[in-house]
């Protein structure tokens, strides 16, 4: 059974913007799926840093659905991406 999760990407600082920042993804996949997907979309493979709710970087092996259940709000999971380390 695959549960679709709505993920909203937000650029931090001077990170490149996405044309459409909202994606529906398979909640059973690992967070690394989002990292790799965004790297392809932005055609940028290095120096990208990912955060949930402007706070922390989840481990690449965390399950997207678990992140959504714990940190999602308003029916979506917010993922911030930056060109350099942010948030201390």
């Amino acid at each position, binding site marked *: 059974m695959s549960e679709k999760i709505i993920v909203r990407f937000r650029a931090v600082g001077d990170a490149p913007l996405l044309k459409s920042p909202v994606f529906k993804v398979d909640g059973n996949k*690992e967070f*690394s799926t989002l*990292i*790799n997907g965004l790297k392809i979309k932005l055609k940028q493979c290095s120096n990208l840093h990912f955060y*949930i*709710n402007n*706070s*922390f*970087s*989840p*481990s*690449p*092996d*965390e*399950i997207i659905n*678990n992140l959504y*259940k*714990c*940190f999602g709000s308003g029916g979506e999971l917010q993922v911030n991406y930056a060109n350099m*380390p942010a*948030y*201390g």
Partner: protein
Amino acid sequence: MVLYKLMYTNVYNKHYAVGLLYDIFENSQNSEKSILPWEITIHFSDFPKNKLLKFKNLDTLKDTYFTTLKESDYMRYGNANKIMCLSLEDQSSLWNSLCKLDFKNFWNINSKLLANTPWLNISARIYYNNTVIQERFVDINEEGITLKNLILSWCSEDFNENSNFDNYRFILHGLNISIDTPLLWLGQYLSYPDNWLHIVIKQIKE
């Protein structure tokens, strides 16, 4: 101390603490199936960079540790302010005491991260049937809440009030934990150094 063991075999691309890997793989109830000592295959090429964080130096480990701490902080309090507000001195003292296994100094700082109640949630993960369960658990501050309440809530497909819990082992730090242990107490005193409770459930009888 190696907090994160970066194992990379064909089957296991995870950033798990070595003690957690032990709890997942040990099989003390069945010595024939025991896999100790571990056979570890080391690869020198084809690093799975899409799955694992590459270990560059000790700072990689330190950054990973602190961001994991932030995540657990966010879980308990709804923000990562307790970590963000630690002074640089406290941050380095926390990290250095962890590296040197300095229990007293570690807890001088770490107690600041766990002591304040009420919590919004428990920062816990349950490893059961090859899945990781991690959800919100807002009942954490209620009187008399135990590990059993958490399992009934998170594993409701397999456990209910009538389940025979004796058919299962609930493992934390290599110990079998009673399901009647108060949950908040577990969170404050038996969390891993990243302030997460990593609880493994194993079925021992049908």
